[in-house]
């Protein structure tokens, strides 16, 4: 079968450095002393903890419940005891802490009761809820909750793309997964195909992974499905970007501000397909993933790692060389430098790249932009990186957005080719986070404005209602007083007392007070003091949300 392939613009060809870590099969990791499982490992709401310190948990037990629909659950990676639920340093460039569940393994590694999901008889919504509660998120690096993507687009979805391109240098976790566990990837992809009602599945793999391509083709053949095709694509960074891979495989160019689903294409990582098959066929939630350990180590390789495993525990298995000075999560192009060596492996960790000054020398000093335009030629998103750079540098964020700052996928091609060594992506990240901060501020200001205006309106309304009530009451009492003078003093006295509280009705008050006085005198003369209620308890005041201050003497 011949498949016509397309090209995306730009891209670069850095040294792949993949051979060293693909020599050995995927290896297990001995249980660390402690697992630190951050609750917030994905895009969306932070799950709220379901366990308490001191509690025993089983492997696969849900310890964090999804917060709303745009979120995902978190599970205990092994059986053991919860030591604490406390902020721990995250695998994040900021070095900030986030709430984590610290588990001390008991060594038994005992699973909860799991059962396969009868997914063929379940409604799509039920399957999506199950996947959310199984903690399935995109394992390509974006960690977007997968259940949200497993919905056919408005116009239907015709093509499901399985992303096995793995274009970033050093990283080989998807490669090894495809070589060793192709059958389960195929089964996972078929489940997703059924959920999306897609006609075909295209598995895109870069042609520098011949074993993976052969294994996946064999797996498709063994499965017997005819709607799935394994396609070798030219090796060119960043062919593994979702929009770039879709372009190469289908020729569809997803324009600015749209999603591929609008054009009937949905894209998932191979690791995600594998995890979905695990969740559906075995009822096992996502608690581990394949992680590449590469860079400045003796024996680069791939490991099946439980989430929460400290990175130094993992990297030690590969033999960290002495001159190591940093851990990078991800690859050399898009990875993030970790704030500490013992940060936990999370769902987004596809690679722990061990770095040293010799392997990744500090970049040459930044020089002035000479407007050569190399960055624009290299940009796979068809942006104008130099324009973005100038506007970001000048903190002219509105202008940067006009040049589609948010279409930048931070692949690093522009910085890679820049002859002036400008850290372009750093500028874009800075500009993006400033824009987000401003948007948050603006949203907060809008809410505050709305609430302030509503409060003012409410106070006005209460004042008005009070005045109306009083006016009605005075009118009524006046009518009563004129029809039967002296008979209604019990009613008139409190009315007079509460009118005294209202400044705007001074004239009315004076009149009412005079009347009340006259009535009281009349009553006194008649010697019939019918229970005169105390003036401090006006019953005519409308209920306000804030009770009167005299209530505070507790």
């Amino acid at each position, binding site marked *: 079968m011949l498949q016509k392939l397309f090209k995306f613009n730009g891209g670069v060809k850095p040294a792949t450095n993949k051979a060293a870590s693909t020599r050995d099969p995927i290896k297990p990791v001995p249980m660390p002393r402690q697992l630190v499982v951050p609750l917030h490992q994905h895009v969306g709401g932070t799950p709220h903890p379901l366990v308490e310190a001191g509690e025993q948990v089983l492997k696969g037990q849900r310890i964090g419940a999804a917060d709303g629909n745009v979120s995902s659950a978190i599970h205990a990676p092994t059986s053991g005891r919860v030591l604490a639920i406390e902020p721990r340093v995250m695998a994040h460039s*900021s070095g900030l802490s986030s709430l984590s569940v610290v588990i001390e393994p008991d060594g038994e590694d005992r699973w909860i009761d799991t059962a396969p999901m009868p997914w063929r008889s379940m409604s799509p919504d039920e399957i999506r809820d199950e996947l959310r509660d199984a903690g399935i998120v995109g394992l390509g690096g974006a960690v977007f909750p997968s259940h949200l993507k497993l919905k056919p687009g408005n116009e239907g979805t015709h093509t499901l793309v399985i992303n096995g391109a793995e274009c970033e240098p050093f990283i080989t976790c998807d490669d090894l997964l495809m070589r060793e566990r192709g059958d389960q990837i195929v089964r996972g992809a078929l489940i997703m195909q059924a959920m999306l009602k897609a006609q075909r599945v295209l598995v895109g793999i870069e042609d520098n992974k011949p074993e993976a391509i052969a294994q996946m083709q064999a797996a498709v053949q063994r499965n017997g499905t005819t709607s799935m095709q394994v396609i070798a694509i030219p090796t060119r960074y960043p062919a593994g970007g979702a929009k770039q891979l879709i372009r190469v495989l289908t020729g569809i160019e997803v324009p600015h501000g749209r999603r591929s689903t609008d054009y009937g294409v949905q894209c998932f990582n191979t690791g995600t397909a594998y995890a979905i098959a695990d969740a559906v066929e075995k009822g096992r939630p996502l608690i581990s993933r394949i992680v590449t350990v590469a860079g400045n180590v003796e024996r680069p390789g791939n490991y099946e790692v439980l989430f929460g495993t400290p990175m130094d525990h993992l990297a030690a298995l590969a033999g960290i060389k002495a001159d190591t000075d940093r851990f990078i999560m991800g690859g050399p192009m898009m990875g993030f430098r970790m704030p500490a060596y013992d940060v936990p492996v999370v769902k987004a960790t596809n690679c722990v790249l061990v770095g040293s000054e010799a392997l990744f020398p500090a970049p040459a000093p930044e020089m002035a932009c000479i407007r050569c335009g190399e960055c624009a030629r290299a940009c796979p998103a068809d942006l104008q990186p130099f324009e973005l750079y100038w506007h970001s540098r000048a903190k002219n964020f509105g202008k940067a957005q006009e040049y589609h700052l948010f279409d930048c996928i931070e692949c690093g091609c522009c910085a890679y080719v820049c002859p002036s060594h400008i850290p372009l992506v750093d500028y874009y990240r800075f500009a993006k986070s400033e824009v987000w901060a401003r948007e948050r501020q603006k949203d*907060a200001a809008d809410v505050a404005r709305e609430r302030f205006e509503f*409060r003012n309106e409410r106070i006005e309304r209460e004042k008005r209602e009070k005045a109306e009530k009083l006016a009605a009451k005075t009118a009524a009492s006046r009518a009563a007083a004129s029809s039967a003078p002296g008979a209604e003093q019990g009613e008139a006295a409190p009315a007079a007392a509460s009118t005294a509280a209202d400044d705007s009705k001074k004239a009315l008050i004076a009149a009412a007070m005079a009347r009340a006085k006259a009535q009281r005198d009349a009553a006194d003369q008649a010697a019939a003091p019918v229970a005169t209620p105390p003036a401090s308890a006006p019953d005519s005041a409308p209920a306000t949300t804030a009770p009167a201050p005299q209530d505070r003497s507790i």
Partner: protein
Amino acid sequence: MLSALLVMAALAVVIGGALGYAAVRFRVEGDPLVDKIDAILPQTQCGQCGFPGCKPYATAIAGGEAEINQCPPGGEEGIRKLADLLGREFKPLNAENGVEKPKSVAVIDENTCIGCTLCIQACPVDAIAGAAKQMHTVVDPLCTGCELCIAPCPVDCITMEPVGETVDTWKWHYPVIPIKTAA
């Protein structure tokens, strides 16, 4: 001579009529400038500017009754934006109105609170929940950090806590070129 006068008079009538019609037809309700200024102000509703809220301050600026440098929560950036919008000179923040502080939220010490509701009445954005003789608490996503609740509290149980950075609100720093120390 007469025809010229007639032409001019007729023109005046026609143009006058058109203008009069436009004034009625395209009448703008409210002052759009006030809304533009209000959109720049931080909506803290703290009253540090000397006006009872951001909208009244915006109205005063638009009316030329107030300077643009009276809003401490808006800070220097806010003043620059106002200066840009209004074509006025930038002025540093007026120290009489207060100083720029990091964003904070009010926190009620639950052990000391006596449930007097005074803070609830003071809060300009209804961000405090509670009832008479019940413990009060601040709904912190809604708190603007205006500090108006601190003064009325008879037992001084409200403190301002700075809002820390979280992984979600963390910002990338402006790329700076490290200067190497001379060897």
